[in-house]
């Protein structure tokens, strides 16, 4: 095959060239708002990954001579603390970076655990059918019927707070949406030509599901991932805001907001800056996720 140039009819060549033109890309391609959201998420990801390198101070380091200092654009701001300091003189920028890292890592890990668990159970339910299917779907219904924040609060009350337990709770949030979605997708995909062909060629179930069906139904699952991620962020930040999630000395965006809320009158930025980071992240993720969904499945809302 190599060396022989592929004959390309003129019309097809024209189509190929047109596809490369930005004008062709823009109307159906990336809208500016979505591009901005993805840019913001990339920046947050960068800051989260390199938080400890970028932070000018340790997130627990206190500077008792400069307490409750405002951010740089206000009076009384000092150069040493770009975003100001809290009641103990801890640098807000450093805390914000570490908190972003903790919150994003928890949300990402939680989303991934939930996705793997849900997808595995969804495939299992679709493959085995019968009572296994019934059992998985019953668990799905059960979890969907209870507000997860209440379940999480109850578990934290019964078992006490612990980082690994908290992470497990993040993972358990939302697994049922993946399970339900995967089950439906797998049941539909199994009847399609390629799956029937692979099965009749003698592929074992593991190979059939992981190598053939899963890559083909990945689109909706990835969309679900982007929609689930903001929900996980909101769950973590809500619990930490209530003082029942991430505990000091570690910090998270929700915990910072919860602490800052006692200083609304004198130092509003302590609550508003972490709150804005949470809001802009979930907003960007939702907009990007919605766009992805409308691209992959225009018939759905």
């Amino acid at each position, binding site marked *: 095959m190599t060396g022989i140039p592929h004959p390309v009819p003129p019309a097809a060549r024209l189509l190929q060239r047109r596809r490369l033109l930005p004008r062709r890309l823009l109307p159906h391609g990336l809208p500016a708002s979505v591009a901005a959201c993805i840019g913001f998420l990339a920046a947050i990801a960068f800051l989260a990954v390199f938080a400890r390198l970028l932070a000018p101070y340790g997130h627990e380091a206190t500077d008792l001579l400069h307490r409750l200092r405002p951010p740089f654009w206000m009076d009384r701001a000092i150069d040493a603390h770009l975003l100001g300091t809290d009641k103990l003189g801890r640098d807000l920028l450093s805390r914000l970076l570490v908190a972003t890292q903790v919150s994003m890592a928890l949300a990402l890990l939680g989303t991934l655990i939930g996705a793997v668990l849900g997808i595995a159970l969804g495939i299992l339910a679709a493959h085995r059918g019968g009572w296994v299917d019934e059992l998985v779907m019953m668990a799905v*219904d059960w979890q969907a019927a209870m507000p997860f924040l209440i379940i999480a609060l109850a578990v934290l009350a019964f078992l006490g707070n612990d980082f690994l337990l908290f992470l497990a709770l993040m993972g358990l949030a939302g697994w049922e949406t993946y399970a339900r979605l995967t089950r439906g997708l797998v049941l539909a995909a199994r009847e399609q030509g390629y799956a029937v062909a692979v099965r009749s060629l003698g592929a074992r179930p593991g190979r059939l599901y992981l190598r053939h069906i899963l890559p083909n139904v990945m689109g909706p699952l990835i969309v679900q991932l982007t929609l689930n991620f*903001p929900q996980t962020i909101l769950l973590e930040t809500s619990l930490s805001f209530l003082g029942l999630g991430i505990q000091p000395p570690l910090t998270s965006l929700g915990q910072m907001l919860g602490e800052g809320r006692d200083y609304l009158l004198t130092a509003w930025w302590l609550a508003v800056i972490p709150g804005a980071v949470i*809001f802009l992240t979930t907003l960007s993720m939702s907009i990007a996720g919605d766009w992805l969904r409308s691209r992959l499945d225009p018939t759905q809302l």
Partner: protein
Amino acid sequence: MNLRYAAIKILRAVLTLWLVVTFVFVVLRVTGDPTEQLLPDDIDPLIRDYYRTAWGLDRPLWEQYLKYFQSAFHGDFGISFRNRLPAAEVIWQRIPKTLELGLATFAAALAMGIPLGVFAALNRDRWLDRLTMSFAVFGFSMPNFFLGILLILLFALHLRILPSSGYGTAAHMVMPVITLATAFAGSIARFTRSAMLEVLARDYLRTAEAAGAGLGRRVWRHALPNAAIPIVTIVGFSLGGMIGGAVVTENVFAWPGVGRLLTSAVADRDLSVVQGIVVLVAVTMVAANLAVDLAYGWLDPRVRVGARERTR
């Protein structure tokens, strides 16, 4: 309405409740001996044994389970060790306040969400539609606690026209209701819009237009009732999110409802109160889901007629 359909739904609801109560029992027993958690460490073993007998912890597990189930069924979750009152009574006192907040939120969200969704659908892809959809995404992404804090900063600290927190007058309700209703109104507007878009494209609406029905009549009399089912569904589904939101919002505004009781009970590990609230939420959710399921038959004559024909 199909009787079998209703019976299956009710059976499922009872099953879900049973699972929740069992879940609470299992988690409680997994956590270990309650006497070790509630009594001081250096207490006389004889006293510990006394309490173990008094609370029935020396009985076999299945007997404890039956006993637990029986008392849960009667609304008895034990004594709140914080104020020595029965947990059910402590919770019961808080319910009206949360209900007050919840009903006002429901009313505000429906009054805002449904018209917004209808007008967005009528002005598809124009600025009103875009604005409504942006509002929906905004509400969906905005954490309750952050919106609440922004409202406090604006209305209580900057403009000084509303009390920053607490309970009492109507003015105290304004900010908690806005906080809770924003996300809810956004999702209602969104679902109303998509349901309306689907209905507006139907033939019977063209027929109604040809027959000379005005726009108002077409929308409110012909289209909206047919779009009601997805709207009712989303209202039912949103209840869970709203209960979670109420827990956070009540904390932001120091609203003395069940949500605030729950967080303080979790912080103090007041387990009887936590159990009672978990079961209360489960009952509420199951009842709401059941009501949504049964409302289908009432809202959609096709379900009624279809069911009757099928049972014949």
